[in-house]
């Protein structure tokens, strides 16, 4: 593999997989809110 191809492989992985990691971290820092006026059904899963 050429050096340029390796560099672009790493950039692609960092931006796309890194983007997913950041999105997941961001979401985990904002916990799910509950609809307080809604009675939660029993979870089936």
């Amino acid at each position, binding site marked *: 593999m050429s050096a340029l*191809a*390796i560099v*672009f492989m790493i950039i*692609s992985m960092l931006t*796309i997989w890194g983007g997913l990691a950041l999105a997941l971290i961001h*979401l985990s820092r904002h916990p799910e*809110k509950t609809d307080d006026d809604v009675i939660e*059904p029993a979870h089936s899963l």
Partner: protein
Amino acid sequence: MSSQSSTQGAPLASDKRETFSSRKLFILSAIGSAVGLGNIWRFPYVAYENGGGAFLIPYLVAILCAGIPLLFLDYAVGHRYRGSAPLSYRRANRKAEVLGWWQVLICFIIAIYYAAIIAWAAMYCWFSITKAWDKNPDGAGGFFMNDFLKVQEEVTVGFDFVGPVLIPMFAVWLIAIVIMVAGVNKGISRANAIFMPLLIIMFLVLVVQSVFLPGAIDGLNTFFTPNFEALKNPSVWAAAFGHIFFSLSVAFGIMVTYSSYMKRKSDLTGSGYVVAFANSSFELLAGIGVFAALGFMAYNANSSVDEVAVSGIGLAFIAFPTIVSQAPLGSVIGVLFFGSLVFAGLTSLISILEVIVAAFQDKLGWRRAPATLIVTIPVALISLALFPTTTGLYLLDTMDAFVNQFGILACALVIVIVLGAGLGMLPKLAKHLNRHSSIKVGTGWKVLVGGVGPAALGYMLINEVQTKMAEQYSGYPAWFNGVFGWGMAGALIVGAIILSMVPWSKKSKLDDPEFHQHKKNVEAEEIPEPAGKEY
């Protein structure tokens, strides 16, 4: 509305609209919908053909400027108006109902042929073990066309059924109908909770196995080597926008329907980012796995990767079987690859069917099971009548090409124009998104959806019209493309107009008291200006 069923006619819907029991299950189901056959067999070739490693730049621009903003638009419409596509658009504006029915009919067309491809992939799992194509003198290509599909020479529509395609297609429909009847939580959520982890594990194993094949490095070199000259070509940018648009399942009505099942205080934009980047992450993985395998194929044939690189049906059902026959532990590669296609396809198929089922369930006001059966059984029968035949491949090819361009693309363009410039709804929808979302949207989002969106979609549509007008698609007879391509695309619009004219009965969900309460709560939660981080 009470939970009692009516004593006359079809049973009424139960009182409450189903919701995904957790955010995790919504995200998993949305990813299951977005990750489909295209991620595996389309993205690797599109990226390779449009600049290789350099494609990353237009690809990321397309995700951030069109994919994610349009995804948020779908989420906002479905979540605010809390209905299937026709009901949501109807609640947004009485005249907009037709757009929802257009999406329902587009999903109907996709569903009838999508099931056929899943059935082929399921059969190829078995063929990977027996390496059935080795016996054909013309190799995997000859096996696929002649031995398996028994494709006849004349391009027409016939009813000569092919048993080994009909039986697995019947099974696919049976599984899909069972999942759909079970509903959002017991069916769709549960199916995605099982199939998606399986898909990810199987695909990861496949990629690891592929990158250790001889020649794999050459494949990866071809895939990632950037061609910066390509970035000067507008068609490369159009390819990136087009790919992201189809890959993320925006404007199909799917995300409108799924987001209508989210809880009121959901973080719509935060979830959307996860869905969009998970979809792209899977595509990148597919690019690595597919090009590593193609590198091995080229190595074995003593040719270059450029000569063996293909996409779509050619990649899955001709190139991959060849790799299965030649690679060490080839049967394992085959089962993992075709199994992945089956799971990716099934999770997308159920999301496509949900658009249709939810629409009729809302309009008829029926309970889940009868509404599902009355919709899915006729869809399955039409699919089983048209595609497991000696002419099914031609029909699939034409319908797929035309419904994508003159169905989805055209419908998306109309929607962004109607919601943006036409009805001026973007400020209202931005307010809706900002109620509980962790990433706020503002002027930037409105410009992207109302300006960049229509410009990009319009450019792609004009290009496609010119291409399809210039020559007969796939060299098929004019009458065939006229009826099943242009005619079908036109019939979807006529059908949508007719369906939107059918009045909503008292039984329907149009005046659902639950929605009025939802609307009141939602409006009370709106904040006047975006605060915090802005899109």
